[in-house]
């Protein structure tokens, strides 16, 4: 049995062993809690939007000379301006498709509505985000329809706002359909917006569409309603799908084409600063997860540094002890210990210290997690995070002591016969 002599030797190095054990405990506790923050954020960022994001871009523009008012003639004029823009975009050689929109996934601005399955229901409605578009919306955005039909040109209406349109036909995401109609028979059923008694019939269901608010409540993340409508306003947005691989050219051509149709409009130069102007969906994605990506990067950096410091600390201390016990190792070798015995001695010693550290670390990790739960509204840390953390630390410890332990095992037995 090799343990008793190891423990006896550690008793001679109480402070050193305690400190490295403490370091391991703290490292385990902090790394586990950092991973508990990084993990959900990384999952959040990896959610698919439901769009075919490649080759997709968004234009936000404003007519400078837009007519004011809400009479039918003015609205018709605004709609005509928008239709002219859409036609110009669709006519571009690098453009495959285009649709007017009012929001896109991850854009952080859009409309929210309370949806119900009964007319004039005010309480207990299901919150959902509204996405407007025309008959080309699904094709342009690359949304996947799983039931029902696409919008056609006769579905598409226009008006000053969502309420005035009262769309008779809508599409919903599968998630929303299942929530509103748990029996899975949502297709063809009416839904009602914001306590209205005007029905909107579900004519189609799309597989998934992420809402515009990436930080919103998770249970609402897939609740989206597609409304076939153009909103008549001075500020309009168009989602455009470029021909494969022609994104940059299409974005450039779109700007020129729109200014050619009507130079009295604002298309902001854009840039990293603002989401107005013309941006690829990749930029919208970057923008949508800006803070999250930053947090993941810096916390991952801290994790890596923590593990590195602890691993190097373990290696440093072990190699120090190897140097200190040079003579004892020689004596053991002279008395018949094999090189493997010496190697195992230092490996098991590290396992004992790291194991003790981990035992304390697990308690500490859970304690810190509980404290953070309250202070930062975090999620509870899954137990397997801690288990993986322990395994990683133990493996790291073995890795760290391997080189100094091998050096120890190569101490020749003749050392024992030399005097200091």
């Amino acid at each position, binding site marked *: 049995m090799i343990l008793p002599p190891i423990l006896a030797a550690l008793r001679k190095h109480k402070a050193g062993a305690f400190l490295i054990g403490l370091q391991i405990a703290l490292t385990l506790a902090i790394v586990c809690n950092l991973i508990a923050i990084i993990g959900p954020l990384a999952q959040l960022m990896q959610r698919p939007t439901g769009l075919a994001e490649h080759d997709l871009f968004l234009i936000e523009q404003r007519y400078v000379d837009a007519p004011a008012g809400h009479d039918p003639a003015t609205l018709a004029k605004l709609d005509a301006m928008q239709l002219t823009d859409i036609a110009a975009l669709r006519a571009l050689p690098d453009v495959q498709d285009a649709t007017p929109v009012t929001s896109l996934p991850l854009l952080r601005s859009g409309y929210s509505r309370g949806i119900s399955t009964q007319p004039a229901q005010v309480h207990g409605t299901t919150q959902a985000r509204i996405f407007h578009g025309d008959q080309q919306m699904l094709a342009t955005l690359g949304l996947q329809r799983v039931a029902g039909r696409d919008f056609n040109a006769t579905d598409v209406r226009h008006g*000053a706002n969502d309420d005035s349109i009262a769309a008779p036909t809508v599409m919903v995401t599968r998630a929303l359909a299942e929530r509103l109609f748990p029996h899975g028979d949502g297709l063809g059923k009416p839904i009602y917006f914001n306590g209205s008694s005007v029905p909107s019939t579900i004519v189609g269901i799309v597989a998934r569409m992420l809402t515009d608010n990436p930080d919103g409540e998770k249970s609402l993340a897939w609740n989206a309603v597609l409304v076939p409508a153009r909103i008549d306003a001075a500020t309009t947005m168009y989602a455009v799908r470029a021909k494969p691989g022609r994104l940059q050219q299409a974005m450039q051509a779109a700007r020129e084409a729109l200014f050619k149709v009507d130079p009295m409009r*604002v298309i902001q130069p854009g840039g990293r*600063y603002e989401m107005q102007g013309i941006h690829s969906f990749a930029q919208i994605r970057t923008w949508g997860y800006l803070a999250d990506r930053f947090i993941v990067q810096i916390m991952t950096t801290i994790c890596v540094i923590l593990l590195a410091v602890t691993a190097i*600390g373990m290696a440093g201390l072990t190699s120090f*002890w190897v140097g200190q016990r040079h003579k004892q190792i020689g004596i053991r070798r002279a008395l018949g210990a094999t090189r493997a015995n010496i190697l195992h001695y230092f490996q098991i010693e590290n396992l004992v210290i790291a194991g003790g550290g981990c035992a304390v670390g697990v308690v500490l990790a859970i304690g810190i997690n509980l404290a953070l739960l309250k202070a930062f509204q975090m999620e509870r840390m899954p137990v397997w995070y801690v288990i993986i953390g322990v395994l990683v630390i133990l493996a790291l410890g073995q890795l760290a002591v391997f080189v100094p332990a091998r050096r120890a095992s190569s101490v020749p037995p003749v050392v024992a016969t030399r005097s200091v």
Partner: protein
Amino acid sequence: MFGYYLDLALRSLRRSPGLTALMVLSIGVGVALAMTTWSLVHSLAGNPVPQKSTRLFVPTIDVWGPDARSKAGGNEPPSLLDYATAQALLRDGRATYQSATYWISPTVVPSTPGTHPFNASGFAVTGQFFPMLDVPFKYGSGWSDANEADRAQVVVISSELNDQVFGGGNSVGKSFAINGRDFRVVGVLANWNTQFAYYDVPAYGGYMVQPIGVFLPFTTAVAMRLPPDGSTGCFKEPAQPGFDGFMKSSCVWISYVAELDTPAAVQRYKEYLQNFASQRFAWPPNVRLRNLMGWLDYLQVLPSGVRMLPLAGVGLLIVCLVDTIGLMLARFLRRSGEIGVRRALGAPRRAIYAQFMTEGALIGVAGGIAGVCFTALGVWWLRVKLPESWTAMVPRMDASLLAITVAAAIVATLLAAVYPIWRAAHVQPAIQVKTH
């Protein structure tokens, strides 16, 4: 004697350069990450107007009533005001200064041919906004209350917009077209836009600095029907379409800030809000009056992950310290024999303290220098990594950060060295001399 100890310390450090580098790096990295994360959160969530914040207050009023509770969340009134309420508060004008504020994005059409129109994003505010928030002017000033009442077409512009429209210089008195109307410049701001819009966080968002072009009088902006560019909230949809319907509705979209200079004034204002709400609404008054910092705290604009960063940084520093203590202890105790000999030859314990304190201090100085270098690197990394809209608020390696970093390194080294030095000084000379 100090020269001798310095020599001893240098010899000892040179004897195991790997271990020395480890200790120095450990202190340096620990201090740097703690400082970098702390300074980031300090500058993102720090006080945007330190000289004024204790006197700035944000009133919120329950304009929707108990029916909206489930929607507004808890018993808290909405974070913004509707037009009628904001206008009534402005009319009463009970604070030293006050401003109703909303984010606007009017269009400027340049007179130069060949250039496109652009949006000059900014805020609709009252004239009192500028003295209230100590807004610095390069030229001119804000507008008067009379201008405000007349819905005068006057504008305060940022120095960037001044460069863009007028090519810089003193443009006070000059005019340019905003949304097709002629506006006279009354003031040009000095470089003020280094903070987030703490006066309009619920609608505009926090920790973001975007270019600001114009400040227009609130009354003028409303008269021009400039729509709010920020978030809005409605309990009931407006009965009529368009901006007019929106203005008449109970939809909330206006931020309100008031300056109250004394505790008595704060108390009077609270009572005034209570009376105001009880006269105005059918339900029991439900109002709040929060100090600016309390308000920002309540809004929690910084993502919780960012707020947690300094904790992670300090945690890392602690691990690095424990690491250094362990390494230093090992290296000091390895010289137990040497200590024993010195003690046996008559060196007092004081001398041992002095010797190892010198060595500890040397490591501390090196660790401090490493810490400062790594902090500078970390702050630089933040600048490269962070979005442009944050970088105006991202810390710089300035004198105060340098001083705090150095102080942190000194404290860290002291903490790391105390125990190893104490152990070294208490080595029993007899045992050491005997075994060797």
